[in-house]
């Protein structure tokens, strides 16, 4: 029999305990074991971003993360950004700016946007940042496009995604 390992994580505010095959990715643990299907599987190779979730506040590719390595972690999906069923500035901005078409990459885009806005606020530079030593990152359209380029959108709603992130970041 396959060895399983006990795992305890918080998913969208709820404590979840399970036993997983050590080969199980965080994405498969969420989708297949916990029925949390908000993060999507677009490539399973960390190349598309559809599986992006927030782990302890930072955006990660859940398909490249082994579940057993995240014991005790706080995992937030696009469906858990606003506790109590309220709205979140990023999801609101995505809706207001029609920043999606088919919607499959969208939960990953939303989590990635939350992470990207936070990274910029903490002064983390990107390849589009002119002054790498500076403290302030101005999240203009070029910065947003660069920071969101790990999340592919084949419908190519990129123009509206950038506008949505710009709007959410300004709140």
């Amino acid at each position, binding site marked *: 029999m396959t060895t399983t390992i006990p795992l305890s994580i918080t998913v969208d505010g709820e404590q979840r305990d399970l036993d997983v*095959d050590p080969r199980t990715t965080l994405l498969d643990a969420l989708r*297949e074991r916990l029925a949390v299907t908000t993060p999507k599987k677009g490539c399973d*190779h960390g190349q598309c971003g559809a599986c992006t979730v927030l782990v302890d506040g930072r955006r990660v590719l859940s398909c490249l993360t082994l579940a057993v390595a995240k014991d005790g972690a706080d995992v937030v999906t696009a469906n858990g950004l606003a506790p109590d069923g309220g709205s979140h500035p990023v999801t609101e901005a995505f*809706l207001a700016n029609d920043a999606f078409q088919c*919607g499959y990459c969208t939960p990953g885009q939303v989590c990635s946007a939350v992470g990207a806005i936070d990274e910029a606020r903490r002064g983390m530079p990107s390849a589009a940042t002119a002054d790498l030593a500076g403290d302030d990152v101005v999240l203009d359209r*070029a910065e947003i496009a660069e920071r969101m380029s790990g999340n592919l959108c084949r419908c190519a709603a990129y123009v509206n995604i950038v506008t949505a992130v710009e709007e959410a970041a300004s709140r």
Partner: protein
Amino acid sequence: MTTMDARSMGTSVRRIEGPDKVTGTAPYAGDTVADGTLVLYPVQATVARGEITAIDTSAATALPGVAAVVTHLDAPRLADDGDPEHRVLQGTTVHHRGQYVAAVLADHAEVAAEAARLVVVSYDEAPSTTGFDPDGGSYTPSALGNGQAPDSVVGDPDAALAAAPVVVKASYATPMEHHNPMEPHATTATWVDGRAIVHEASQGADLARQTLATLFDAEVEVSSPHVGGGFGTKGFLHAGTVLAVLAARTVPGRPVRFALGRRQMFETVGYRPATVQHMALGAEADGRLDALVHDVVGATARYKEFVEPAGGSSRSMYAAPHRRTSHRAVPLDLDAPTYMRAPGEAPGSFGLECAMDELAVALDMDPIELRVRNEPSVHPENGLPFSSRGLVECLRTGAERFGWSTWDRAPRRRLVDGWWHGVGVGCGTFPAFRMPGSTAEITFTGGRYVVAIGAADIGQGARTVLTQIAADALGVDVGSIEVEIGSTSLPVGSIAGGSAGTASWGSTVVEAADRFRDKYGEDPDDGDHADAATPDNPWAEEFAMAAYVAQFAEVAVHADTGEIRVPRLLGTFGVGRILNPTLGRSQLQGGMVWGLSMALHEESVVDPRFGEVINHDLAGYHIAANADVREIDAQWIDEDDGYVNPMGAKGIGEIGIVGVAAAIANATYHATGVRVRSLPITCDDLLTDPAFG
């Protein structure tokens, strides 16, 4: 003819399913998590052509957690629907590498994948041909992928070319490309009391139902409420769906889920086949075309024919008294090609619109003016008048908005901070038609009108736009409409394809609304209902109907590295009435990004030794990412076309991509003086050309 009055149509109603999509709670076909679900992992052929001589499943079957291993030796028999792609596990013949030869069902994905690796398949390999050689053995297909004849001739094009004062002859190549919707194909299937219940990622639930019902000679239900992109690959069923339903039949009562991996998206769900296009244009000194020739050689699969109709748009774009299009097919031992966004027009416009640009250079004429001078008054082949044709207006208004006239026409003139800048134009068309066979039902219940039709929302916004159409057809607010789509439990809907979904379903909804009002007036009782089938378009044989676009591109090419960027794209469209400006603009812009991606990134590379796409993932097969897209804008002209349908709307799903690659290639020439005639255009194309400097 006049179009119907619009109150909601033409306004930017928000996507109805938006809240479900931004929270990830909209259910896609792979999101089914019912207890007892078995995960399917396929075993795929490792040879491109041959016969299976033995399959050893003993090690796989012995693995704990494996529920079944299905092979051609024990798979249920399928009826033959005439599509070789659907003969899954029905015999020993291997037609292409990656073909499904067995399926493992297991409790968990990890176990299924491991068990699939333990299945040992022996082959008697046969010689195969998988590399596309346009000069290799080709044949004349009986029909193109769109059903049209492979060849067309008007006048004597060869004689006209020989006599023309100015002639451009050049060959253009477009590569194999894969659709790669973000949602890989997925099927969840359960057999209950001899019926198959299928949750499918599909551009047409009823087409999927019909196909499966024929193959399995059984009742089939298909639901497909949300689809993570299609672009043509989720229209006709591919082998994976058949495999899932077939395997599920061996474990009655248990759901079986097969969500394709990204790699399988390069092996079993079709692609746009490679083409080489031999163009010849003969013109008078004033630019008027004497002859237009578009001879296409394209790849197809040996076991299933699909021929990209790349010469199709050359039959209608420009006037010329002497003209020819032809299509020849080279059969390969590969997965079968299929429809991919703007099949025919997307690659075909690269050949035609680059050749027109080369002719403009040869004539020392503005390429916009050259196109205007060759604007036909009627369809150049069949003589039908156009229901509307906005190409010249698109060119004029687009040029104005783009600032076209501020650029010196000569190439290689503008070097800014180490980047060569240039601009280019490319045009395009896509047919506007209506598919028969839908039925819409309208029921008044609880003070609202429920509109039911088996349409598909693959991201284009069918739910939203059909709500707007129904509201206007019934003369009520959108809040009084509830649209139900995406299931075979509803009246039949045609597919989301051919840029004809909204036109087909919308015409049907309008007809049903008219009948509803005729029957019940403005004050219906609860439960009143009416239905209607898709009405024929009485004008279909009277007019040539199509959408048009003029695409403008500015490129910047790094003088040292040859890196190409596209700082600006503008598409100006003549597409009838835009039903929802926000959704419409997004769809058109998305198509334009596809064009950018086609121009600079996309190419599936087949290793001819093995018949395998070697860049079979999203790291190796590049599609445009966010930062590849700079300033991009889609605009449209006012166009009132009462002949296409009551809404006056031409399809917009595909026209966005058409002409973009040519515009970028032409702009690259304008920037650098280097003419690249094969896609994608990459740094090495420029750096290896002596003219680049």
